[in-house]
C-alpha cells in the first residue's frame, strides 16, 4: 500500500511536469499558431544553463538561471527565426516552422555533443543532494516536493499575469481574435514574443529539475517535447492552459504505475501506445463524420468546419 501511495506521489510529481509542458504549449501554440517543437531546445538549454550556473552559484539560483535561459532562448527563437520564417513563406508557415524547430533540436543536440565531447555531453548539476522526507506517513523525495512547488508556482504566475495585467489582456485578445486585436492596436508579434518567453521559461525550469533528477544529456529534449504536444492536443489548444493538469497527471501516474509492472523500455513503449490511442480518439472525435452526427444530437458551441463570410 505504502509503495502504491509512494508511486502515486512520484507519478503525480512527474505528471505535474508534463502538465506544465502541455500548458506551456497550449499557451504558445494556442496563441501564436506556431508548432514549436523546439520547446525541447528550451528544456535542454534550461538544464545546461543550470549545470553551468551551479558551478558558481547555489542550486536554487541555478534553477533561476535555467528559467531565464529557457525564456530568453524562446524569445530569441520567436523573434529571430519563426517570425522571419513566417514572413518568408506565409502559406507554408506551419510546415516550415515545424521543420525549423526540428532542425533547431538537431543543432542543439549536435552542438552540445561537440562542445562537451567527454562523456557524451552528460553533465550533472552541482550542489544539490536529494533525500527522502516523510510527510504524514508518506515518504517522498525532496526533489519531487520542489518540482511540485515549482510547477504550481509557474502555473499560478502565468495565470495571474494573464488575468491581472494589461499584457495578459493583450495575450487573451490575440488568442481570441488575432486580426481584431491587431485592429485595436495590439501588436501580435510582441504578444508572440511574450508568450514564447513565458512558456519557454517555465519549460526551461522543468529542464533543470530533470537535470537535478539524473543529469543533463544532449538528447533530453525530444521526449518532453513530444509528451507536451500530446497533452496540449488532448487537452485542446483553445482551452485554458491549466486544463492540461488532468491529462498531464494521468500520463505521469500511469507511467509510474506501469514501471511497477514492466521495464522502463517497455513502459516507454506502452506510454507511447497510450498517447497514440489518445490522439486517434481525439482525431476520431474531431472527424467530419462524427461532428456531423454529434451535432445533430446536441447543439455545438462553436463553428467546427465552417467557411467564413460576413453573412
Amino acid at each position, binding site marked *: 500500500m505504502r509503495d502504491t501511495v509512494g508511486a502515486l506521489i512520484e507519478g503525480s510529481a512527474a505528471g505535474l511536469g508534463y502538465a506544465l509542458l502541455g500548458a506551456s504549449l497550449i499557451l504558445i501554440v494556442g496563441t501564436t499558431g506556431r508548432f514549436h517543437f523546439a520547446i525541447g531546445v528550451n528544456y535542454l538549454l534550461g538544464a545546461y544553463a543550470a549545470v553551468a550556473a551551479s558551478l558558481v552559484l547555489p542550486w536554487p539560483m541555478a534553477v533561476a538561471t535555467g528559467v531565464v535561459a529557457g525564456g530568453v532562448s524562446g524569445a530569441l527563437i520567436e523573434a529571430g527565426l519563426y517570425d522571419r520564417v513566417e514572413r518568408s513563406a506565409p502559406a507554408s508557415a506551419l510546415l*516550415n516552422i515545424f*521543420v525549423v524547430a526540428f532542425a533547431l533540436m538537431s*543543432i542543439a543536440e549536435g552542438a552540445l555533443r*561537440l562542445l562537451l565531447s567527454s562523456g557524451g555531453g552528460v553533465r550533472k548539476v552541482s550542489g544539490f543532494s536529494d533525500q527522502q522526507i516523510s510527510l504524514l506517513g508518506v515518504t517522498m523525495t525532496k526533489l519531487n516536493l520542489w518540482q511540485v512547488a515549482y510547477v504550481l508556482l509557474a502555473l499560478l504566475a502565468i495565470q495571474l499575469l494573464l488575468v491581472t495585467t494589461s499584457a495578459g489582456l493583450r495575450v487573451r485578445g490575440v488568442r481570441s481574435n488575432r486580426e481584431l486585436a491587431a485592429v485595436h492596436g495590439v501588436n501580435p508579434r510582441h504578444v508572440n514574443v511574450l508568450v514564447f518567453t513565458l512558456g519557454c521559461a517555465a519549460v526551461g525550469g522543468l529542464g533543470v529539475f530533470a537535470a537535478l533528477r539524473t543529469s543533463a544529456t544532449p538528447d533530453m529534449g525530444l521526449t518532453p517535447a513530444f509528451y507536451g504536444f500530446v497533452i496540449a492536443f488532448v487537452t485542446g489548444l483553445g482551452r485554458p492552459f491549466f486544463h492540461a493538469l488532468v491529462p498531464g497527471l494521468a500520463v505521469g501516474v500511469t507511467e509510474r504505475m506501469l514501471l511497477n509492472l514492466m521495464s522502463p523500455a517497455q513502459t516507454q513503449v506502452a506510454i507511447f501506445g497510450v498517447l*497514440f490511442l489518445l490522439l486517434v480518439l481525439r482525431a476520431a472525435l474531431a472527424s467530419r463524420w462524427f461532428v456531423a452526427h454529434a451535432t445533430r444530437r446536441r447543439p455545438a458551441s*462553436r463553428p467546427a468546419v465552417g*467557411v467564413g*463570410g*460576413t*453573412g
Partner: protein
Amino acid sequence: MNSQIQIDVVNACLLAGVLALSINLLLGYTRHISVAHAAFAGVGSYAATWVSIQQGLPFLTCVAIGTGLALVSGVLVGLPSLGLADEFLILLTLCTGALFTGVVTSAPDLGGAYGLLGIEQVTVAGSTLLRPSDWLPYLILAFGCVLAICWYLTRSPYGRRLRAVGDEPTAASALGMPVQLLRLQVFALAAGLAGFAGAISAYYNQVTSPAMWSFNQTLLIIIMVIVGGSGTLAGPCLGAVVITVLPRALQFAGMPPDRAGLYSQIIFAVLLIGMILVRPGGLIRRRPGSRIVSNVFAAAVGLSPSAPRAGALAVRAEGLSKHFGGVAALDGVTIELPRQQISALVGPNGAGKTTLFNALTGFLPVEGGRVFIGATDVTLKSPAYRARLGLVRSFQDVRSFATMSPLDSVTVAVPARRGSDLASGLLRPRATRRAERSSREAARYWLEYVGVDADDLRPTGDLSFAEQKLVALARTLASGAEVLLLDEPLSGVDERWVDTIMDLLERLRADGHTICIVEHSLHVVSRLATQVFFMEAGALTATGTVEELLGRPEFVDSYFGAAS
C-alpha cells in the same frame, strides 16, 4: 579513393533518392508532413529482414512483404488524421516514429538496439551481389522504377488533383474532389515507397537497426527535399546527393566518423533553416504556372467540349438550425431555390447568409433540419458528395489554386474522368488521353466563357483579384454543377468588372443554371434576382421580388438602413 567506395556512395544516393522522392509526394504535392517516414522505411526494412531470416523467403518476396506492410502502416496512421488539421498528422506521425523505435529497440526478437543481422545475400542469375558494383545496376533499376511511379503520380491528371488538394483543399472539396481519399492514397503510397527503400537497404547493408530509422533520419529526408526543391522530381534527387555525399566528404577529408556525423548534422540543419529563410522553394524550384500534366496524357486530336448542362435540379432545405454558443446562426430556415433563376440571399452582416451556404453545401454540420438535392437527402453527406450531385459553391475570399495556371485550375475541376483516379492512367492510357484532351477543351471553353485568356501561364495566385474571381467562376462552371451558390461574387471587384460578371451571371441563367448569390448591393440584386430571400438573426424573415420587399418598411429599415 577506392572505386568500390565511390560506387557505395552512388548506391547510398540512389537509396536516399527513393526516400526523398517518396516524402516529396507529401511535402511537395498534398502539402503534408510525415515525421514517421523513416519509421515506415524501418517497417519495410525490419519486415523484409525478419521474413528472410525466419522463413527463408526469396529476395523479391521479402521486399514485397516489407513494402506492403509499410503501405498498410501508412493507411492505418493516415486514416484517422488526414481529414484533420495538419498538426494532428504531425503529432500522430511523431508518435508512430517513437512507437516504432521503442518497439524495435525493446523487442529481443528484433535484435534490440543492435538490430537484425544475417539477412540472406541476394543472388541474381547464379551470382551473389556482394560488392557495391554488383548492386549498382539493380539499385539504378529500383530508383528508376520509383522515379517513374512518382512521375506518373505527379504529371498525370491524378497529379493535378493532388496539386489542387495541396493548394486549396476546401475549394477542392467544394468542387467534388475526394480530398481525404486522395490524401490517404498518397500518404499510403509514400509510406509504401519508403518501405521499399527500407527493405532494399536491409539487403544492401546486410543489417537493419533502430538507429537507421530514427527521427534524425526522417529529418535528413525532409532536408533533402527542402534543400533540393519540393514539388519537383529533380529537387529531391539533388537534395539526396548533397545530403548523402557531405558526411562522407568530411570523412574523406580526414575527420573521424563520429565528429563528421555531428558536423554534418549541424551543417544540414543550418542549411535547412537558411534555405527556408532565403530560398523557400529549394535549389530547383517548380516553374510557376507551368503545365502540370504531361502531354503524354493528352490525345493529339481535340474533342469538342461537352455542352453546358441545363437541368432543373432542385435544392431545398427544411428547418435548418445551428447555434454558435447562445447565438442562433440558423433558426429553422426552410428554403427552396427557384430553378433556373437567380435568387439572392440578403440581410445585414451576421444574419446567417454564409452560414446557410455552409450548411447547404455541407461545410457546416447542422443541429436540426434536412437538406435535399433533388430527391436525395444529403444532410449528413460531405461537400464533395453534394458537389458531385450538382451543388457547387464559390467563396468570398476566392480560394484559388494559387500555384496552378488558370487552365490547370479549371481543368482540374472538370468532373472525374478517366485518368483522374489513381490507376486508370496506367490501365486505360488511351481513354485517359482522350479524357484529358476533352477536359482541357472544356476548361478552355469555360475560361473563354468568363473572358480569361486560357493561354495565360501565370499562376492563378498572381492574377488580379477580379481575374481570380473569374477563374474561380470558370472552375465552378467546369465542375458541371447545375446549382451555383455564389458568395458575394462582386465583392472586392472594381467597377469595370462588375458589369462583366453580372452579364456573365445572366448568361448562365439563360443557359439553365440555378444560381443563388449572397449580395449586399441593391443595384446588383434588383438587376439579377427574380426572388430575394431576406435573412435576419439566422431566420428567413421575408421572401419575394425586390419590388415586393421594398414595399415593406420593416425590410427597408432593417436591411437598407443597416447596409447603407
